[in-house]
Protein backbone atom coordinates (compact mmCIF):
# COMPACT_ATOMS: atom_id res chain seq x y z
CA UNK A 1 0.00 0.00 0.00
CA UNK A 2 2.90 2.31 0.71
CA UNK A 3 5.78 3.10 -1.60
CA UNK A 4 8.19 0.59 -0.18
CA UNK A 5 11.61 1.86 0.56
CA UNK A 6 13.89 -1.11 1.23
CA UNK A 7 16.58 0.98 2.85
CA UNK A 8 14.16 2.69 5.25
CA UNK A 9 12.41 -0.58 6.07
CA UNK A 10 15.74 -2.19 6.87
CA UNK A 11 16.73 0.68 9.11
CA UNK A 12 13.41 0.61 10.99
CA UNK A 13 13.71 -3.14 11.43
CA UNK A 14 17.22 -2.76 12.78
CA UNK A 15 16.14 -0.12 15.30
CA UNK A 16 13.24 -2.34 16.40
CA UNK A 17 15.52 -5.31 16.89
CA UNK A 18 17.94 -3.26 18.98
CA UNK A 19 15.04 -1.93 21.06
CA UNK A 20 13.64 -5.43 21.51
CA UNK A 21 17.04 -6.67 22.71
CA UNK A 22 17.16 -3.80 25.19
CA UNK A 23 13.72 -4.86 26.43
CA UNK A 24 15.00 -8.39 27.00
CA UNK A 25 18.16 -7.27 28.76
CA UNK A 26 16.70 -7.10 32.31
CA UNK A 27 15.41 -10.65 31.92
CA UNK A 28 18.84 -11.85 30.86
CA UNK A 29 20.37 -9.97 33.79
CA UNK A 30 17.87 -11.49 36.20
CA UNK A 31 18.43 -15.07 35.04
CA UNK A 32 22.22 -14.77 34.82
CA UNK A 33 22.44 -13.12 38.27
CA UNK A 34 20.31 -15.88 39.74
CA UNK A 35 22.91 -18.38 38.54
CA UNK A 36 25.85 -16.67 40.19
CA UNK A 37 27.19 -18.24 43.35
CA UNK A 38 27.28 -16.46 46.66
CA UNK A 39 31.09 -16.49 46.56
CA UNK A 40 31.12 -14.63 43.33
CA UNK A 41 28.85 -11.90 44.62
CA UNK A 42 30.61 -11.44 47.93
CA UNK A 43 33.97 -11.19 46.18
CA UNK A 44 32.45 -8.46 44.00
CA UNK A 45 31.72 -9.71 40.53
CA UNK A 46 32.06 -7.21 37.74
CA UNK A 47 30.75 -9.31 34.92
CA UNK A 48 27.50 -9.94 33.20
CA UNK A 49 27.94 -13.71 32.96
CA UNK A 50 28.37 -15.89 36.02
CA UNK A 51 31.87 -17.32 36.14
CA UNK A 52 30.45 -20.70 37.13
CA UNK A 53 26.73 -21.42 37.06
CA UNK A 54 25.31 -22.45 40.42
CA UNK A 55 21.81 -23.25 41.65
CA UNK A 56 22.62 -22.13 45.18
CA UNK A 57 20.22 -19.18 44.96
CA UNK A 58 17.30 -21.36 43.95
CA UNK A 59 18.09 -23.85 46.68
CA UNK A 60 18.03 -21.11 49.31
CA UNK A 61 14.69 -19.75 48.09
CA UNK A 62 12.98 -23.13 47.89
CA UNK A 63 14.45 -24.65 51.06
CA UNK A 64 15.00 -21.76 53.46
CA UNK A 65 11.96 -19.66 52.61
CA UNK A 66 8.25 -20.49 52.75
CA UNK A 67 8.10 -20.03 49.01
CA UNK A 68 5.31 -22.54 48.39
CA UNK A 69 3.24 -20.83 51.04
CA UNK A 70 3.66 -17.42 49.40
CA UNK A 71 2.62 -18.84 46.04
CA UNK A 72 -0.39 -20.47 47.69
CA UNK A 73 -1.42 -17.19 49.37
CA UNK A 74 -1.25 -15.36 46.07
CA UNK A 75 -3.05 -18.11 44.19
CA UNK A 76 -5.90 -18.43 46.69
CA UNK A 77 -6.55 -14.71 47.05
CA UNK A 78 -6.29 -14.05 43.30
CA UNK A 79 -8.59 -16.93 42.33
CA UNK A 80 -11.24 -15.99 44.89
CA UNK A 81 -11.09 -12.31 43.95
CA UNK A 82 -11.33 -13.09 40.23
CA UNK A 83 -14.24 -15.52 40.57
CA UNK A 84 -16.15 -13.17 42.85
CA UNK A 85 -15.49 -10.10 40.72
CA UNK A 86 -16.72 -11.85 37.59
CA UNK A 87 -19.87 -12.95 39.39
CA UNK A 88 -20.70 -9.63 41.08
CA UNK A 89 -19.87 -7.62 37.95
CA UNK A 90 -22.08 -9.74 35.71
CA UNK A 91 -24.92 -9.70 38.23
CA UNK A 92 -24.84 -5.97 38.90
CA UNK A 93 -24.23 -5.26 35.22
CA UNK A 94 -27.29 -7.31 34.32
CA UNK A 95 -29.48 -5.52 36.83
CA UNK A 96 -28.32 -2.08 35.75
CA UNK A 97 -28.72 -2.95 32.08
CA UNK A 98 -32.02 -4.79 32.03
CA UNK A 99 -33.99 -3.87 35.15
CA UNK A 100 -35.53 -0.70 36.45
CA UNK A 101 -35.68 0.38 40.03
CA UNK A 102 -35.68 3.55 42.06
CA UNK A 103 -32.38 5.40 42.26
CA UNK A 104 -30.83 3.24 39.56
CA UNK A 105 -29.22 6.06 37.61
CA UNK A 106 -27.79 7.71 40.69
CA UNK A 107 -26.36 4.44 42.01
CA UNK A 108 -24.74 3.63 38.71
CA UNK A 109 -23.17 7.08 38.50
CA UNK A 110 -21.87 6.70 42.06
CA UNK A 111 -20.30 3.35 41.19
CA UNK A 112 -18.76 4.83 38.05
CA UNK A 113 -17.41 7.76 40.05
CA UNK A 114 -15.39 5.42 42.28
CA UNK A 115 -13.36 4.46 39.20
CA UNK A 116 -11.85 7.94 39.30
CA UNK A 117 -10.70 7.65 42.91
CA UNK A 118 -7.01 6.83 43.30
CA UNK A 119 -6.28 4.13 45.85
CA UNK A 120 -4.12 6.51 47.88
CA UNK A 121 -7.29 8.42 48.75
CA UNK A 122 -9.20 5.51 50.21
CA UNK A 123 -6.35 3.41 51.60
CA UNK A 124 -6.33 4.99 55.06
CA UNK A 125 -10.06 4.52 55.84
CA UNK A 126 -9.98 1.10 54.17
CA UNK A 127 -7.17 0.15 56.52
CA UNK A 128 -9.13 1.45 59.51
CA UNK A 129 -12.27 -0.44 58.44
CA UNK A 130 -10.36 -3.64 57.83
CA UNK A 131 -8.65 -3.29 61.20
CA UNK A 132 -12.04 -2.75 62.89
CA UNK A 133 -13.22 -5.98 61.28
CA UNK A 134 -10.24 -7.68 62.90
CA UNK A 135 -8.70 -8.73 59.60
CA UNK A 136 -5.19 -7.27 59.85
CA UNK A 137 -2.65 -9.92 58.82
CA UNK A 138 -5.33 -12.18 57.37
CA UNK A 139 -5.73 -13.20 53.76
CA UNK A 140 -9.38 -12.21 54.11
CA UNK A 141 -8.19 -8.60 54.30
CA UNK A 142 -6.79 -8.93 50.78
CA UNK A 143 -9.95 -10.56 49.47
CA UNK A 144 -12.82 -8.66 51.08
CA UNK A 145 -12.32 -5.13 49.69
CA UNK A 146 -11.73 -6.57 46.21
CA UNK A 147 -14.85 -8.65 45.66
CA UNK A 148 -16.48 -5.96 43.54
CA UNK A 149 -15.10 -3.84 40.74
CA UNK A 150 -16.69 -0.65 39.46
CA UNK A 151 -14.93 -1.15 36.15
CA UNK A 152 -16.33 -4.67 35.95
CA UNK A 153 -19.88 -3.48 36.59
CA UNK A 154 -19.49 -0.78 33.96
CA UNK A 155 -18.14 -3.19 31.34
CA UNK A 156 -20.77 -5.83 32.07
CA UNK A 157 -23.56 -3.26 31.79
CA UNK A 158 -22.24 -2.05 28.43
CA UNK A 159 -22.09 -5.57 27.02
CA UNK A 160 -25.38 -6.80 28.46
CA UNK A 161 -27.24 -3.76 27.11
CA UNK A 162 -26.48 -5.05 23.61
CA UNK A 163 -28.28 -8.33 24.24
CA UNK A 164 -31.74 -8.09 22.59
CA UNK A 165 -34.59 -7.81 25.08
CA UNK A 166 -36.64 -10.30 22.99
CA UNK A 167 -34.16 -13.04 23.79
CA UNK A 168 -34.60 -12.51 27.52
CA UNK A 169 -38.39 -12.21 27.22
CA UNK A 170 -38.57 -15.46 25.29
CA UNK A 171 -36.57 -17.25 27.96
CA UNK A 172 -38.77 -15.80 30.70
CA UNK A 173 -41.83 -16.95 28.78
CA UNK A 174 -40.36 -20.45 28.91
CA UNK A 175 -40.27 -20.12 32.66
CA UNK A 176 -36.60 -19.41 33.19
CA UNK A 177 -35.81 -17.69 36.50
CA UNK A 178 -33.47 -14.73 36.70
CA UNK A 179 -30.45 -16.75 37.82
CA UNK A 180 -31.00 -19.35 35.12
CA UNK A 181 -31.25 -16.53 32.62
CA UNK A 182 -27.90 -15.20 33.79
CA UNK A 183 -26.12 -18.52 33.62
CA UNK A 184 -27.68 -19.93 30.45
CA UNK A 185 -28.18 -16.89 28.25
CA UNK A 186 -26.26 -13.85 29.43
CA UNK A 187 -23.01 -15.43 30.61
CA UNK A 188 -22.29 -17.23 27.32
CA UNK A 189 -23.05 -14.09 25.32
CA UNK A 190 -20.66 -11.91 27.32
CA UNK A 191 -17.96 -14.57 27.61
CA UNK A 192 -15.29 -12.61 25.68
CA UNK A 193 -15.78 -9.63 27.97
CA UNK A 194 -15.76 -11.88 31.05
CA UNK A 195 -12.54 -13.58 30.05
CA UNK A 196 -10.85 -10.24 29.48
CA UNK A 197 -12.09 -8.94 32.82
CA UNK A 198 -11.02 -12.19 34.46
CA UNK A 199 -7.49 -12.04 33.11
CA UNK A 200 -6.98 -8.45 34.19
CA UNK A 201 -8.55 -8.95 37.59
CA UNK A 202 -6.36 -11.97 38.23
CA UNK A 203 -3.23 -10.19 37.10
CA UNK A 204 -3.94 -7.06 39.11
CA UNK A 205 -4.54 -8.97 42.30
CA UNK A 206 -1.53 -11.23 41.71
CA UNK A 207 0.71 -8.19 41.20
CA UNK A 208 -0.89 -5.91 43.79
CA UNK A 209 1.71 -4.49 46.13
CA UNK A 210 0.42 -1.44 47.99
CA UNK A 211 -2.60 -2.94 49.76
CA UNK A 212 -0.83 -6.11 50.98
CA UNK A 213 2.03 -3.87 52.13
CA UNK A 214 -0.40 -1.95 54.32
CA UNK A 215 -2.37 -4.84 55.73
CA UNK A 216 0.05 -7.79 55.96
CA UNK A 217 3.26 -8.02 57.94
CA UNK A 218 3.24 -11.64 59.02
CA UNK A 219 5.80 -13.43 56.88
CA UNK A 220 3.63 -16.53 56.47
CA UNK A 221 0.63 -14.51 55.24
CA UNK A 222 2.47 -12.52 52.59
CA UNK A 223 1.55 -12.60 48.92
CA UNK A 224 4.25 -13.04 46.33
CA UNK A 225 5.18 -9.40 45.46
CA UNK A 226 5.27 -8.42 49.10
CA UNK A 227 7.26 -11.49 50.09
CA UNK A 228 9.75 -10.79 47.34
CA UNK A 229 10.41 -7.27 48.64
CA UNK A 230 10.58 -8.49 52.23
CA UNK A 231 12.97 -11.21 51.12
CA UNK A 232 15.07 -8.63 49.32
CA UNK A 233 15.38 -6.73 52.60
CA UNK A 234 16.76 -9.75 54.43
CA UNK A 235 18.96 -11.09 51.61
CA UNK A 236 20.11 -7.81 50.09
CA UNK A 237 23.75 -8.94 50.07
CA UNK A 238 23.03 -12.24 48.35
CA UNK A 239 21.31 -10.99 45.30
CA UNK A 240 21.62 -14.36 43.60
CA UNK A 241 18.97 -15.50 46.11
CA UNK A 242 16.72 -12.54 45.44
CA UNK A 243 17.12 -12.89 41.69
CA UNK A 244 16.28 -16.60 41.95
CA UNK A 245 13.07 -15.68 43.75
CA UNK A 246 12.33 -13.08 41.09
CA UNK A 247 12.83 -15.68 38.35
CA UNK A 248 10.56 -18.18 40.11
CA UNK A 249 7.86 -15.54 40.42
CA UNK A 250 8.15 -14.08 36.94
CA UNK A 251 8.28 -17.35 34.99
CA UNK A 252 4.75 -18.56 35.81
CA UNK A 253 3.28 -15.18 34.92
CA UNK A 254 5.06 -15.19 31.58
CA UNK A 255 3.95 -18.76 30.91
CA UNK A 256 0.33 -17.87 31.64
CA UNK A 257 0.62 -14.82 29.43
CA UNK A 258 2.05 -16.78 26.51
CA UNK A 259 -0.82 -19.27 26.75
CA UNK A 260 -3.58 -16.65 26.93
CA UNK A 261 -1.85 -14.05 24.82
CA UNK A 262 -4.64 -13.69 22.28
CA UNK A 263 -7.38 -13.11 24.84
CA UNK A 264 -5.06 -10.80 26.69
CA UNK A 265 -4.33 -8.48 23.79
CA UNK A 266 -7.95 -8.62 22.68
CA UNK A 267 -9.10 -7.80 26.19
CA UNK A 268 -6.72 -4.89 26.40
CA UNK A 269 -7.89 -3.34 23.15
CA UNK A 270 -11.53 -4.12 23.92
CA UNK A 271 -11.60 -2.72 27.42
CA UNK A 272 -8.59 -0.46 27.56
CA UNK A 273 -7.95 -1.86 31.00
CA UNK A 274 -4.56 -1.35 32.55
Amino acid sequence: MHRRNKWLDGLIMLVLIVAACAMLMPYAWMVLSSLKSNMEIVSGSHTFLPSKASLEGYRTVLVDAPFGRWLMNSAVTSVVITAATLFTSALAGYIFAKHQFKGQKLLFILILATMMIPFQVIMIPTYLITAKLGLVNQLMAIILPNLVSSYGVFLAKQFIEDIPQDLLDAARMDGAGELRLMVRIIAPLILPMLSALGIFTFMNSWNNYLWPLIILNDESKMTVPLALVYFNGTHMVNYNVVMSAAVLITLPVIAVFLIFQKQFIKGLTMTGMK
Partner: protein
Amino acid sequence: MNLGTATGRNKGIEPGAERAGRKNGRKFIYLSLAPVLLLFGVFAFLPIGWSLGLSVFKYNPLSGSALFVGADNYIRMLGDSVFLKSLWVTFKFVIIAVMVNIIITLMIAVAIQRIRTGWLRSLMRTLFFLPTIAPLAGTAIVWSTMFNFNHGLFNILLDKMHMAPIQWLSDPHYALYSVIMMTLWADIGYNIVLFIAGLDSIPDMYYEAAILDGASRWHIFKDITLPLLRRSMLFISVTTVVSYFQAFAQFQIMTKGEPFNETRVLALHIYEQAFSNSNMGYASAMATVFLLIILVVTLLQLKWGRTEWEY
Protein backbone atom coordinates in the same frame (compact mmCIF):
# COMPACT_ATOMS: atom_id res chain seq x y z
CA MET B 1 -60.84 -5.40 14.06
CA ASN B 2 -59.67 -8.89 14.69
CA LEU B 3 -56.24 -7.55 15.30
CA GLY B 4 -57.71 -5.13 17.75
CA THR B 5 -59.34 -7.80 19.86
CA ALA B 6 -56.23 -9.88 19.75
CA THR B 7 -54.12 -7.10 21.17
CA GLY B 8 -56.95 -6.26 23.52
CA ARG B 9 -56.93 -9.77 24.86
CA ASN B 10 -53.19 -9.73 25.16
CA LYS B 11 -53.39 -6.52 27.06
CA GLY B 12 -55.92 -8.17 29.32
CA ILE B 13 -53.52 -10.95 30.21
CA GLU B 14 -50.27 -9.07 30.33
CA PRO B 15 -50.74 -6.81 33.34
CA GLY B 16 -51.24 -9.76 35.66
CA ALA B 17 -48.33 -11.74 34.30
CA GLU B 18 -46.21 -8.64 34.22
CA ARG B 19 -47.04 -7.81 37.79
CA ALA B 20 -46.05 -11.29 38.89
CA GLY B 21 -42.90 -11.06 36.81
CA ARG B 22 -42.13 -7.65 38.17
CA LYS B 23 -42.62 -8.84 41.73
CA ASN B 24 -40.19 -11.69 41.09
CA GLY B 25 -37.87 -9.24 39.43
CA ARG B 26 -37.98 -6.88 42.42
CA LYS B 27 -37.09 -9.69 44.79
CA PHE B 28 -34.24 -10.67 42.50
CA ILE B 29 -32.98 -7.10 42.26
CA TYR B 30 -32.97 -6.52 46.01
CA LEU B 31 -31.55 -9.90 46.94
CA SER B 32 -28.68 -9.81 44.51
CA LEU B 33 -27.87 -6.13 44.53
CA ALA B 34 -27.83 -5.82 48.31
CA PRO B 35 -24.54 -7.66 48.95
CA VAL B 36 -22.88 -5.98 45.97
CA LEU B 37 -23.96 -2.55 47.14
CA LEU B 38 -22.94 -3.35 50.68
CA LEU B 39 -19.40 -4.08 49.46
CA PHE B 40 -19.32 -0.89 47.39
CA GLY B 41 -20.68 0.99 50.38
CA VAL B 42 -18.15 -0.29 52.88
CA PHE B 43 -15.07 -0.35 50.66
CA ALA B 44 -15.68 2.52 48.24
CA PHE B 45 -18.28 5.10 49.27
CA LEU B 46 -17.63 5.05 52.99
CA PRO B 47 -13.82 5.38 52.68
CA ILE B 48 -14.14 8.42 50.41
CA GLY B 49 -16.33 10.24 52.89
CA TRP B 50 -14.23 9.03 55.80
CA SER B 51 -11.05 10.25 54.15
CA LEU B 52 -12.52 13.73 53.65
CA GLY B 53 -13.69 13.72 57.27
CA LEU B 54 -10.35 12.50 58.59
CA SER B 55 -8.56 15.34 56.82
CA VAL B 56 -9.82 17.87 59.39
CA PHE B 57 -8.62 15.82 62.35
CA LYS B 58 -5.28 15.20 63.95
CA TYR B 59 -5.54 11.46 64.14
CA ASN B 60 -3.02 8.91 65.35
CA PRO B 61 -4.30 5.33 65.16
CA LEU B 62 -1.85 4.16 67.83
CA SER B 63 -3.12 6.48 70.55
CA GLY B 64 -6.63 6.37 69.11
CA SER B 65 -7.07 10.08 69.79
CA ALA B 66 -8.80 12.22 67.19
CA LEU B 67 -8.56 15.95 67.68
CA PHE B 68 -10.60 18.27 65.50
CA VAL B 69 -8.24 20.79 63.93
CA GLY B 70 -10.34 22.28 61.12
CA ALA B 71 -8.30 23.44 58.14
CA ASP B 72 -5.01 23.15 60.05
CA ASN B 73 -3.85 20.11 58.09
CA TYR B 74 -4.38 21.99 54.84
CA ILE B 75 -2.64 25.10 56.13
CA ARG B 76 0.26 22.98 57.37
CA MET B 77 0.81 21.69 53.84
CA LEU B 78 1.56 25.17 52.53
CA GLY B 79 4.50 25.46 54.90
CA ASP B 80 5.68 21.86 54.61
CA SER B 81 8.73 21.94 52.38
CA VAL B 82 8.76 18.15 51.98
CA PHE B 83 5.16 18.18 50.78
CA LEU B 84 5.83 21.02 48.35
CA LYS B 85 8.92 19.24 47.07
CA SER B 86 6.93 16.04 46.60
CA LEU B 87 4.33 17.97 44.59
CA TRP B 88 7.09 19.29 42.36
CA VAL B 89 8.70 15.84 42.00
CA THR B 90 5.33 14.26 41.20
CA PHE B 91 4.61 16.71 38.40
CA LYS B 92 8.14 16.40 37.06
CA PHE B 93 7.86 12.62 37.02
CA VAL B 94 4.40 12.57 35.43
CA ILE B 95 5.18 15.14 32.74
CA ILE B 96 8.51 13.67 31.67
CA ALA B 97 7.47 10.02 31.91
CA VAL B 98 4.15 10.52 30.10
CA MET B 99 5.66 12.56 27.29
CA VAL B 100 8.53 10.18 26.68
CA ASN B 101 6.14 7.24 27.01
CA ILE B 102 3.72 8.54 24.37
CA ILE B 103 6.45 9.52 21.92
CA ILE B 104 8.33 6.23 22.05
CA THR B 105 5.25 4.03 22.18
CA LEU B 106 3.81 5.79 19.13
CA MET B 107 7.10 5.37 17.27
CA ILE B 108 7.40 1.70 18.18
CA ALA B 109 3.75 1.05 17.31
CA VAL B 110 4.15 2.66 13.89
CA ALA B 111 7.33 0.66 13.31
CA ILE B 112 5.75 -2.64 14.38
CA GLN B 113 2.72 -1.94 12.23
CA ARG B 114 4.95 -1.59 9.18
CA ILE B 115 6.24 -5.14 9.56
CA ARG B 116 4.55 -7.27 6.95
CA THR B 117 5.46 -10.72 8.22
CA GLY B 118 2.66 -11.73 10.59
CA TRP B 119 4.64 -13.83 13.06
CA LEU B 120 7.43 -11.28 13.27
CA ARG B 121 4.93 -8.57 14.02
CA SER B 122 3.30 -10.52 16.84
CA LEU B 123 6.73 -11.56 18.18
CA MET B 124 7.74 -7.90 18.42
CA ARG B 125 4.48 -6.95 20.08
CA THR B 126 4.92 -9.78 22.59
CA LEU B 127 8.50 -8.76 23.41
CA PHE B 128 7.51 -5.20 24.21
CA PHE B 129 4.44 -6.32 26.13
CA LEU B 130 6.11 -8.92 28.36
CA PRO B 131 7.38 -6.54 31.07
CA THR B 132 3.87 -5.19 31.71
CA ILE B 133 2.65 -8.49 33.10
CA ALA B 134 5.53 -9.07 35.52
CA PRO B 135 4.86 -7.92 39.10
CA LEU B 136 6.09 -4.35 39.34
CA ALA B 137 7.56 -5.03 42.78
CA GLY B 138 9.76 -7.77 41.28
CA THR B 139 10.74 -5.55 38.38
CA ALA B 140 11.76 -2.79 40.81
CA ILE B 141 14.04 -5.19 42.67
CA VAL B 142 15.66 -6.50 39.50
CA TRP B 143 16.27 -2.94 38.32
CA SER B 144 17.72 -1.98 41.72
CA THR B 145 20.43 -4.59 41.21
CA MET B 146 20.99 -3.33 37.64
CA PHE B 147 21.49 0.18 39.05
CA ASN B 148 23.88 -1.08 41.77
CA PHE B 149 27.01 1.07 41.90
CA ASN B 150 29.57 -1.70 42.39
CA HIS B 151 28.32 -4.53 40.25
CA GLY B 152 25.18 -3.44 38.49
CA LEU B 153 24.58 -3.94 34.79
CA PHE B 154 24.67 -0.26 33.85
CA ASN B 155 28.00 0.43 35.48
CA ILE B 156 29.44 -2.74 33.94
CA LEU B 157 28.39 -1.36 30.55
CA LEU B 158 29.83 2.08 31.31
CA ASP B 159 33.04 0.40 32.42
CA LYS B 160 33.21 -1.51 29.12
CA MET B 161 32.97 1.85 27.34
CA HIS B 162 35.68 3.25 29.64
CA MET B 163 33.34 5.70 31.30
CA ALA B 164 33.07 6.63 34.96
CA PRO B 165 30.44 4.74 36.97
CA ILE B 166 27.30 6.55 38.06
CA GLN B 167 25.37 6.45 41.35
CA TRP B 168 22.16 5.79 39.49
CA LEU B 169 19.78 5.76 42.41
CA SER B 170 21.62 7.90 44.94
CA ASP B 171 22.87 10.82 42.86
CA PRO B 172 20.22 13.57 43.03
CA HIS B 173 20.79 14.39 39.36
CA TYR B 174 20.11 10.88 38.14
CA ALA B 175 17.77 9.22 40.65
CA LEU B 176 14.46 10.40 39.20
CA TYR B 177 15.57 9.65 35.64
CA SER B 178 16.68 6.17 36.65
CA VAL B 179 13.22 5.47 38.06
CA ILE B 180 11.63 6.94 34.92
CA MET B 181 13.75 4.64 32.77
CA MET B 182 12.61 1.61 34.76
CA THR B 183 8.97 2.74 34.70
CA LEU B 184 9.06 3.11 30.93
CA TRP B 185 10.54 -0.36 30.50
CA ALA B 186 7.85 -1.82 32.71
CA ASP B 187 4.94 0.03 31.20
CA ILE B 188 5.27 0.89 27.50
CA GLY B 189 3.77 -2.41 26.34
CA TYR B 190 0.19 -1.33 27.11
CA ASN B 191 0.34 1.83 25.08
CA ILE B 192 2.10 0.10 22.18
CA VAL B 193 -0.74 -2.42 21.96
CA LEU B 194 -3.36 0.33 22.22
CA PHE B 195 -1.64 2.44 19.55
CA ILE B 196 -1.35 -0.56 17.22
CA ALA B 197 -5.09 -1.13 17.65
CA GLY B 198 -5.71 2.54 16.87
CA LEU B 199 -3.50 2.38 13.79
CA ASP B 200 -5.22 -0.79 12.60
CA SER B 201 -8.58 0.95 12.72
CA ILE B 202 -7.55 3.65 10.22
CA PRO B 203 -9.01 2.63 6.85
CA ASP B 204 -6.46 1.94 4.11
CA MET B 205 -8.31 4.09 1.61
CA TYR B 206 -7.14 7.31 3.27
CA TYR B 207 -3.56 6.26 2.72
CA GLU B 208 -4.23 5.10 -0.82
CA ALA B 209 -5.79 8.46 -1.69
CA ALA B 210 -2.88 10.34 -0.15
CA ILE B 211 -0.32 8.24 -2.04
CA LEU B 212 -2.15 8.94 -5.30
CA ASP B 213 -1.94 12.64 -4.47
CA GLY B 214 1.80 12.19 -4.04
CA ALA B 215 1.91 13.09 -0.36
CA SER B 216 5.21 12.56 1.42
CA ARG B 217 5.66 10.09 4.25
CA TRP B 218 5.83 12.86 6.82
CA HIS B 219 2.69 14.54 5.48
CA ILE B 220 0.80 11.28 5.53
CA PHE B 221 1.79 10.75 9.16
CA LYS B 222 1.04 14.32 10.20
CA ASP B 223 -2.17 14.86 8.23
CA ILE B 224 -3.75 11.41 8.27
CA THR B 225 -2.32 9.14 10.95
CA LEU B 226 -2.10 11.63 13.80
CA PRO B 227 -5.56 13.24 13.41
CA LEU B 228 -7.26 9.87 13.01
CA LEU B 229 -5.39 8.59 16.04
CA ARG B 230 -6.78 11.34 18.23
CA ARG B 231 -9.25 9.14 20.08
CA SER B 232 -6.54 6.63 20.97
CA MET B 233 -4.23 9.49 21.87
CA LEU B 234 -6.73 11.07 24.26
CA PHE B 235 -7.55 7.75 25.89
CA ILE B 236 -3.90 6.78 26.24
CA SER B 237 -2.81 10.11 27.65
CA VAL B 238 -5.60 10.21 30.23
CA THR B 239 -5.04 6.66 31.47
CA THR B 240 -1.25 7.04 31.49
CA VAL B 241 -1.34 10.34 33.38
CA VAL B 242 -3.71 8.92 36.00
CA SER B 243 -1.64 5.78 36.46
CA TYR B 244 1.69 7.66 36.66
CA PHE B 245 0.31 10.02 39.28
CA GLN B 246 -0.31 6.94 41.40
CA ALA B 247 3.08 5.31 40.74
CA PHE B 248 4.26 3.95 44.06
CA ALA B 249 5.99 0.56 44.14
CA GLN B 250 9.08 1.57 42.15
CA PHE B 251 9.69 4.61 44.36
CA GLN B 252 9.07 2.81 47.62
CA ILE B 253 11.30 -0.12 46.67
CA MET B 254 14.08 1.52 44.65
CA THR B 255 14.73 4.87 46.31
CA LYS B 256 12.43 5.36 49.32
CA GLY B 257 12.12 8.95 48.18
CA GLU B 258 15.84 9.63 48.51
CA PRO B 259 18.28 11.27 47.73
CA PHE B 260 17.25 14.62 49.23
CA ASN B 261 13.59 13.83 48.52
CA GLU B 262 14.35 14.00 44.80
CA THR B 263 12.14 10.95 44.23
CA ARG B 264 9.56 11.50 46.96
CA VAL B 265 6.38 11.45 44.91
CA LEU B 266 3.10 12.37 46.58
CA ALA B 267 1.83 8.77 46.57
CA LEU B 268 4.88 7.69 48.59
CA HIS B 269 4.70 10.71 50.90
CA ILE B 270 1.05 10.03 51.74
CA TYR B 271 1.81 6.36 52.43
CA GLU B 272 4.72 7.17 54.73
CA GLN B 273 2.87 9.89 56.62
CA ALA B 274 -0.06 7.55 57.19
CA PHE B 275 1.63 4.24 57.92
CA SER B 276 5.19 5.01 59.04
CA ASN B 277 4.53 8.23 60.95
CA SER B 278 0.91 7.50 61.90
CA ASN B 279 -0.20 10.99 60.88
CA MET B 280 -3.42 9.79 59.36
CA GLY B 281 -5.25 13.10 59.49
CA TYR B 282 -2.50 14.97 57.73
CA ALA B 283 -2.07 12.14 55.22
CA SER B 284 -5.81 12.26 54.48
CA ALA B 285 -5.61 16.00 53.83
CA MET B 286 -2.78 15.37 51.36
CA ALA B 287 -4.83 12.60 49.79
CA THR B 288 -7.68 15.07 49.26
CA VAL B 289 -5.34 17.46 47.48
CA PHE B 290 -4.03 14.51 45.46
CA LEU B 291 -7.59 13.61 44.41
CA LEU B 292 -8.33 17.20 43.37
CA ILE B 293 -5.16 17.35 41.29
CA ILE B 294 -6.02 14.15 39.44
CA LEU B 295 -9.60 15.29 38.83
CA VAL B 296 -8.56 18.69 37.50
CA VAL B 297 -5.81 17.28 35.29
CA THR B 298 -8.17 14.64 33.85
CA LEU B 299 -10.94 17.15 33.17
CA LEU B 300 -8.49 19.53 31.49
CA GLN B 301 -7.20 16.73 29.28
CA LEU B 302 -10.72 15.71 28.31
CA LYS B 303 -11.60 19.30 27.53
CA TRP B 304 -8.53 19.89 25.37
CA GLY B 305 -8.93 16.52 23.75
CA ARG B 306 -12.52 17.22 22.82
CA THR B 307 -12.05 20.71 21.40
CA GLU B 308 -9.26 19.39 19.24
CA TRP B 309 -11.49 16.64 17.84
CA GLU B 310 -14.12 19.01 16.65
CA TYR B 311 -11.93 20.81 14.18
